[in-house]
């Protein structure tokens, strides 16, 4: 299913599924590479820039089931990989006390597959999303090596289970913890930053088609200023940009003005500390003024990427 696509077709498919990419962000080419090489894709970047969305859109593009493992501290293999169905095993022991053999108890029948095993045992290709891998402990990461490298797992009581169909694996990380070299080596790497103004306008126009282009541009510029120039603990995510745009649309706004920024600020800035920082460092009027004087093309996707270098 993933075999015969060219890069151009893949880019079109992403766009068709509503996922906007730019040449500069390299998302399309890197994801294409991971899928074609059959390697896990490791996506890093700040929260809210569309990392998880990549897995969702891949499942859409390849019409594959999305299997999600949300990581957290203390996650272990019984939650991530498999667990034995103890109740059933106990029942079986009670019923066949005399004639029971050990291997009867450790067969697929008594196995409760968790997301990782589910993805391997799926007869159809699936997309496996291992979300926020940096939240787990280092031991769990090591435990994933076999799965990510060979697409197989070993269950001591049963032996090795090979993937029926190699899943497309996407791992995401917010960089809370340095990941091990072993894990990184097994993956294709993609770093996603907050979108440029131009890209965010395109996202807005795709997701909220009724939004007038002029307002979309104002919104994207204001968000860009919020992200770049104010010391917020949590910068607004793309989802929050969309919420804001929808709210403005709902209230029939055609232009941004300071009063409306004040009224709707809590859709973007969600802690008291950040609200204080916003008013201390900028305020609505200055935000709009700075947004107005911002050149849409000047705000680059990857900071320093367009860094021009002149050497004598």
């Amino acid at each position, binding site marked *: 299913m993933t075999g015969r696509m060219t890069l151009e077709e893949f880019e079109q498919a992403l766009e068709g599924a509503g996922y906007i990419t730019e040449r500069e962000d390299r998302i399309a080419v*890197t994801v294409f590479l*991971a899928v074609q090489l059959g390697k896990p894709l490791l996506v890093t970047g700040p929260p809210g820039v569309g990392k998880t969305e990549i897995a969702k859109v891949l499942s859409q593009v390849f019409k594959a089931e999305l299997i999600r493992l949300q990581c957290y501290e203390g996650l272990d293999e019984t939650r991530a990989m498999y667990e034995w169905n103890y109740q059933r095993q106990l029942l079986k022991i009670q019923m066949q006390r005399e004639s029971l053999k050990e291997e009867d108890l450790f067969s697929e029948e008594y196995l409760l597959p968790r997301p990782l095993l589910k993805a391997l045992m799926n007869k159809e290709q699936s997309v496996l999303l291992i979300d926020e891998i940096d939240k787990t402990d280092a031991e769990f990461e090591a435990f994933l090596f076999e799965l990510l490298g060979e697409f197989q797992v070993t269950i001591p009581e049963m032996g090795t289970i090979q993937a029926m169909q190699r899943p497309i694996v996407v791992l995401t990380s917010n*960089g*809370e913890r340095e990941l091990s070299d072993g894990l990184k080596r097994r993956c*294709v790497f993609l770093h996603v930053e907050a979108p440029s103004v131009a890209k965010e306008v395109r996202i807005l126009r795709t997701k909220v088609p009724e939004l007038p282009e002029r307002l979309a541009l104002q919104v994207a510029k204001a968000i860009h200023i919020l992200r770049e120039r104010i*010391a917020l603990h949590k910068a607004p995510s793309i989802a929050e940009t969309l919420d804001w745009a929808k709210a403005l649309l709902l209230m029939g706004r055609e232009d941004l003005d300071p009063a409306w920024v004040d009224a709707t600020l809590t859709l973007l800035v969600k802690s008291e500390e950040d609200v204080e920082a916003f008013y201390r460092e900028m305020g609505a009027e200055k935000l709009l003024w700075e947004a107005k004087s911002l050149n849409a093309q000047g705000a680059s996707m990857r900071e320093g990427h367009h860094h021009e270098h002149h050497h004598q």
Partner: protein
Amino acid sequence: MSTTISELDKHLVEFAQLLRDFGIRVSASEILDAMQGLTLVGLEDKHHVEAVLEATLVKDPNQIPWFQEAFRAYFASPEAQKAWQEHSEKQAAQWQEKLGQTRKELRFQERDLDLTEEERALYAQLPEAEKERLRQFLERSSHGMKSGIPVDHAFQPMVERVVRGSLEYWRRKLGEDFPILPPGSFDGVHSEVEEAIRRRELEFLSQDLKKISPEDWPEVVKLIRRLTQRLASQISRRYRADRRRGGLDMRHTLRANMRYGGTLVERRYRSRHMGRPKFVLLCDLSGSMLKYTEFVLQFVYGLSSVVSGIETYAFGEGLVRLTEKIRSGQSFQDMVQEALPAARGEWGGGTNLANALETLMREGAQVLSRRTVFIILSDSQTLEGERAARYLANIRRRVREILWLNTLPSRRWTEVHAVELFSPHCRMYECYTLGHLTHILSERLG
């Protein structure tokens, strides 16, 4: 499989080697991935080639700027590479010539003096009059007499000590403002990448804070924000992970053992949280320290979400509390203007840590508890070192930990007696760049 090495293979291996030289670990399997990726995507579009190499060879966001510069330089036109090569060779030649010149000038009885390259480079940067003075000194002492007998080469070590002492004096006087580092790599592509990186944000991590120019501040402040955000989330994670075992938790034990039919196989324990630390910051307000203090304050306050409070004091001759001023959002410059007279006292005396610690123990004793991480930011140049060390020892018994962020480079610590006095009572770190600061706090706050 073909045994001949294609041009592409050769370039890939060479490029991987270049990345390794800049500290990016690239394994053979990753080179293989890159190769497969290029075969898949094609070589026509340079942008795609860069994306493929980045996706397969780089695995850490911090390494991306290095990768980008290395890619740009390695795949630049032959003309550009030739120009870089000539430039770096010229620089290297100039450096060598400078050192060679000092060998001609700094001689004692026709013999070379035993000086390091750094000392020679420093000499080369001295004002001409000072150079002349040193040369005359060497000339005179070469023909000097002692008790009526001409001095011989046995006096050379003594002469060298005098020269070194004089160079040391000048290094301090020039405030180490003159870059006395040898030129980077002699290889054109290498030195081009190093130079480009130096011009980029990453350089701020390894640049002496005092030397960051005012126009770079906004960038640095942004960088500090990013660093502290990352560090704060790391720290809060560690506090959550670092749970000491408490007593047996019956309810969870029973629940966990339901799966074994109620037989107690596993035990569950209550977890005990370790409290968040409280920071007490004591910053040196002497002139040379102001810039450092400003950055460290920015940095430490960026961590306020993961500590249970920050108390800030500044000291000069005396002690001043800054906590309220910082809370009220006063600018650093105004704060210093107000605090300076109080900290410096009426007599304009020198920096005195002992006085500051004494006042702190008397008036602010409540902020020093077992939860306190006491952070001192100072170059350790203070009056009454012995008395200060005694107070420090006393405070050490009350707090969780004392971190001394010393802005003096560690290679110069042996020259300052106070360092020896203070080190037994605190963890002293060399700290004059953002890189140092990030590293220390991430290591110590676990």
